[in-house]
């Protein structure tokens, strides 16, 4: 019945003015995109699981392809959101780009924590998970050195890990939009002020911090743009199929958040955002002091000029703290997500990372 009514409406359209026809078709297409069409496929670069621990998985990408770069790359992503942003879709994937050029790429996927994982802290992730993953990567690749690539919070974790493991053969570190200095984190510094934001009560009550709560905080940075902007853009450019595909991919990823384990959140907000311990060498992980000067690996640190989640001022101070001989800091004309996905990333940033890794791996 609904079908016949729709058909009748369609034939009625022929009698109406052109503008109404165009607008009706546009409206219909927008509604189809939002309500009917299936989610786009993501993370399509072939991969195999080479190790698991609890809910975490270590993937090796395109294992059958020829590896011409002798230093494997381990990607470490944030504990929130899903890591397929690094392998969004063919032609728009950092992982695909690197593997196609002969790099041996691995990704540590933290998985989606359940209530039983609420006690997991950075201590567990950095001292129990990452070292094992590094060991597995070195063994699988039969390599003697490794490159680490950390994105956002994953970059912070990578930095802490590297500082705590100077004995490991870490050749290169690539950091994307990585917060290290939390003295001025923009609006977050104001909102997370410990006089008003009671992180302990939040963690004690909820155990696991819902993804929606994290997402709300991010969207609050620019409420009108975050909530309405995407739909205005969709209506405006719905006739452009490429735009619609990218729009669906991005909306899927943005809505696909994962909860933050309570104890890790307590450290992230309490010790980093509220007390800024990392840059001041005052952070302790399972009793070990994190001293950034112990990092000696080559460092490529990239921040986004338009990034409102991690501003470049939060990333830059790391370069002055590490002991690396070869270190570079770049501010690119992107935001927090467009540093890895989209035309700017594809044309400029992916090649920049690849070139730097190749130059520093021989």
């Amino acid at each position: 019945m609904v079908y016949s009514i729709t058909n009748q409406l369609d034939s009625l359209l022929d009698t109406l003015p052109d503008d109404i026809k165009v607008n009706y078709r546009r409206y219909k297409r927008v509604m189809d995109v939002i309500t009917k069409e299936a989610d786009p496929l993501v993370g399509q670069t072939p991969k195999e699981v080479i190790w698991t621990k609890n809910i975490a998985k270590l993937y090796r990408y395109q294992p059958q392809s020829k590896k011409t770069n002798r230093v494997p790359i381990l990607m470490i992503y944030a504990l929130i959101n899903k890591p397929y942003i690094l392998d969004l879709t063919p032609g728009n994937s950092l992982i695909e780009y690197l593997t196609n050029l002969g790099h041996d790429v691995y990704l540590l996927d933290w998985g989606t924590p359940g209530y039983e994982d609420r006690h997991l802290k950075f201590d567990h992730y950095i001292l129990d998970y990452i070292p094992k993953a590094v060991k597995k990567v070195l063994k699988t690749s039969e390599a003697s050195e490794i490159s680490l690539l950390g994105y956002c919070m994953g970059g912070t974790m990578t930095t802490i890990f590297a500082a705590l493991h100077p004995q490991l053969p870490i050749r290169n570190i690539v950091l994307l939009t990585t917060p290290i200095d939390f003295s001025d984190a923009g609006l977050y510094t104001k909102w997370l002020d410990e006089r008003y934001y009671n992180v302990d009560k939040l963690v004690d009550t909820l155990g696991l911090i819902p993804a929606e709560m994290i997402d709300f905080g991010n969207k609050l940075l620019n409420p009108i743009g975050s909530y309405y902007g995407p739909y205005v853009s969709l209506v405006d450019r719905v006739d452009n199929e490429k735009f619609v595909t990218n729009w669906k991919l991005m909306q899927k990823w943005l809505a696909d958040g994962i909860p933050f384990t309570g104890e890790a959140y307590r450290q992230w907000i309490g010790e980093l955002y509220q007390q800024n311990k990392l840059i001041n060498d005052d952070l302790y992980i399972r009793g070990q002091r994190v001293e950034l000067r112990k990092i000696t690996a080559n460092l490529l640190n990239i921040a986004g000029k338009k990034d409102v989640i991690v501003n470049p001022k939060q990333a830059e101070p790391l370069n002055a703290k590490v002991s690396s001989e070869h270190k570079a800091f770049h501010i690119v004309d992107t935001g927090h997500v467009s540093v890895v996905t989209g035309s700017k990333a594809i044309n400029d940033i992916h090649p920049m990372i690849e070139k730097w890794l190749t130059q520093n791996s021989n």
Partner: protein
Amino acid sequence: MTNTLPFDPFNMWKTFYEQTDANWTGVIQEMLKKESFSEGMGETLNHYLQAQKLMNEKTETFLKSVNLPTRSEVADVASLVINVESKLEALEDGLEEEINQLKIAISILDKKIDKLLSTFEGTEK
């Protein structure tokens, strides 16, 4: 009949959004920066958490009274499984280490036997 409309509703909506964004973003940003906003947000969160805590406690009491497991109890079972997995992993690592040591020992032994054999062969000649 004319083929155009006096206005385009989508363009009108877009213009409305753009003007709202241009006019209000500054005002909203200023509000978001204010200490009173952080204070208000903190207060709201505390009230929410207080209500949530009460609800958690009541739910737990109810579930216990009807002999059903609480979320924490279910999570505890999952934790036991994770612990078993961790122990298996430790065993696997230990075994791997032992095998590696054994391989090294066999390799050394192999070399020693080769040396002995060549010594014997030399003596026989």
